[in-house]
């Protein structure tokens, strides 16, 4: 008996450290990727030049040549934005999937991305600053997910997951129609190209201002998810069981939706709609560390940051022209989604 319990403890400890190891490996991988991505590009920088430029920067010395400008004004902000975007979208996706107890929901499927996209287009249309665009993106994104959720809870007697997904598709396409309307109304020489390029999803226009405007918003959204990670986990058992276990399910659900939507919307506001990250990455993370949200969230965020950085680096280096990143994530994500469908429920783990 005592021996058996000891064996269980040991296995539990082993599993825990396995997960810690996986998360540490992912973090190391992300750092290596960030380093590599800072060097690669239309203006290649050698590791020595990077170290020298960072040293000059830290010492407060005068910048030398183009390297400092390329590195600090263009490349590093872009690298940070891609990591931040991937981490936020994947983290939000993991939260939505746990919350709706459905491994197939994501910011895209719930209509949050399109809703936030509509809000951001509205912001561009009204010539708002970055912060204003983020606010409109968040407000319309939140309204979209509220509408989807309201529609799904009014329709009874059907598979609730199917209803949720269909409601997301319907509300998402409405938001899409509103975006088209704004495109027609926009100034064709000034605003329209900005809107169109932005809708394709890209980090190419990112400068330091955008990164500094987005980071706090993502952190504000992330904080409640981190603090409430255990309760979010319990909520994945369903409202009734969660309540019986002592969780105020209704309030918690609203808070998590608001937090995840803020994370999604603040990224969408600077990068445009980048699909599939919030759906695919949490899946891979769940395959690695299991469904427990306290492990899933950091894993999904590290994985999402690495993934989007990798894809963005490809997007700016693989061809003579910049390939919009939304196109690449769709090309990579769609087949993965089909593969998940074909694996059936098994793949949901």
């Amino acid at each position: 008996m005592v021996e058996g319990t000891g064996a269980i403890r040991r296995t539990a400890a082993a599993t825990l450290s396995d997960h810690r190891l996986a998360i540490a490996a992912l973090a190391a991988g992300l750092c290596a990727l960030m380093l590599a991505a800072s060097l690669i590009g239309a203006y290649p920088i050698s590791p020595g030049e990077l170290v020298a430029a960072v040293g000059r920067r830290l010492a407060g010395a005068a910048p030398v040549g183009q390297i400092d400008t390329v590195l600090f004004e263009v490349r590093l902000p872009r690298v940070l934005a891609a990591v931040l975007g991937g981490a936020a979208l994947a983290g939000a996706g993991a939260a939505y999937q746990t919350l709706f107890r459905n491994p197939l929901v994501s910011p895209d499927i719930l209509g949050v991305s399109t809703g936030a996209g509509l809000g951001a287009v509205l912001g561009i249309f009204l010539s708002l600053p970055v912060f204003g665009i983020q606010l409109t993106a968040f407000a319309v994104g939140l309204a979209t997910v509220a509408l989807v959720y309201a529609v799904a809870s009014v329709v009874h007697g059907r598979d609730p997951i199917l209803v949720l997904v269909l409601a997301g598709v319907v509300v998402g396409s409405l938001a899409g129609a509103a975006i088209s309307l704004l495109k027609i109304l926009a100034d064709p020489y000034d605003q329209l190209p900005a809107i169109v390029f932005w809708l394709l999803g890209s980090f190419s226009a990112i400068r330091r201002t955008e990164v500094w405007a987005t980071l706090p918003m993502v952190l504000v959204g992330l904080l409640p998810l981190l603090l409430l990670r255990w309760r979010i986990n319990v909520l994945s058992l369903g409202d009734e069981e969660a309540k019986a276990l002592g969780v105020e399910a209704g309030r918690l659900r609203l808070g998590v939706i608001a937090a995840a939507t803020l994370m999604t919307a603040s990224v969408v506001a600077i990068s445009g709609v980048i699909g599939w990250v919030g759906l695919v990455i949490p899946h891979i993370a769940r395959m690695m560390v299991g469904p427990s949200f306290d492990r899933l969230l950091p894993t999904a965020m590290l994985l999402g940051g690495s993934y989007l950085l990798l894809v963005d680096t490809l997007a700016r280096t693989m061809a003579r022209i910049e390939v919009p990143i939304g196109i690449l994530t769709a090309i990579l994500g769609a087949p993965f989604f089909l593969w998940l469908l074909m694996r059936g429920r098994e793949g949901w783990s």
Partner: protein
Amino acid sequence: MSTPLLAAHRLAFGYRGKPVGRHVDLELRAGEVLCLLGPNGSGKTTLFKTMLGLLPPQAGEVRLGGRPIGALARNQIARSVAYVPQAQAAHFPFRVADMVVMGRTAHLGPFASPRRQDHAKAHAALDALGIGGLAEAEYTRISGGQRQLVLVARALAQDAPTIVMDEPTASLDFGNQVVVLSEVRRLAARGLAVLLSTHDPDHAFSIGHRVALLDAGRLVAHGRPDEVLTPERLRAVYGVTVTVERLSQGQTVCAPDYGVA
């Protein structure tokens, strides 16, 4: 007499616009097993959900340790009464140990995760039911009977003086039914109060201190098993003919007439 741990007074229950039952009076005290019997659709699950504070009462009230349940926060309720739902397929493949430690949630602060002693309680609960070996298994990959036992373990880890079980034996094989029911009896001997629903009058005879018989949302009888579960009443409620026999070992069993001589 002491204050009942869980009590319903003139309780009417159901969903908005769809009343299910009314005039229910029940009291549950420490060390007691109360079995709720009733045909399909008689309102057992709805009554339980109301008594757990998951549904608002339509009239009357539910008291938990003498206090109206509506005045208590979720974690206060969960520290007083644990719920064992009917085991369903889970959506996510949690490990059994993770599932059981969720029973500790009501004892944790809002931002806390389970600590070492919570994990120890979870493992102790699994060991108490003889399923310590399942700790690392995936909840989605074990049998329905094992899942039910895991949910009982989760309720044990919850450390509440009262446990409400919705048909805990429904998906269990013969052997596991005996395992769960003898555990219920042991819990009562340790001073816990258990309210459980079952379809089998024999379970009420073997472990119930008291039985309540629910039919179409009304309590038609309430008392000692041998007083409540008479052949006449069982015929009236279930529409079948049964013989109630007392075995020489002192156990009482209920034998239905299947119409084949």
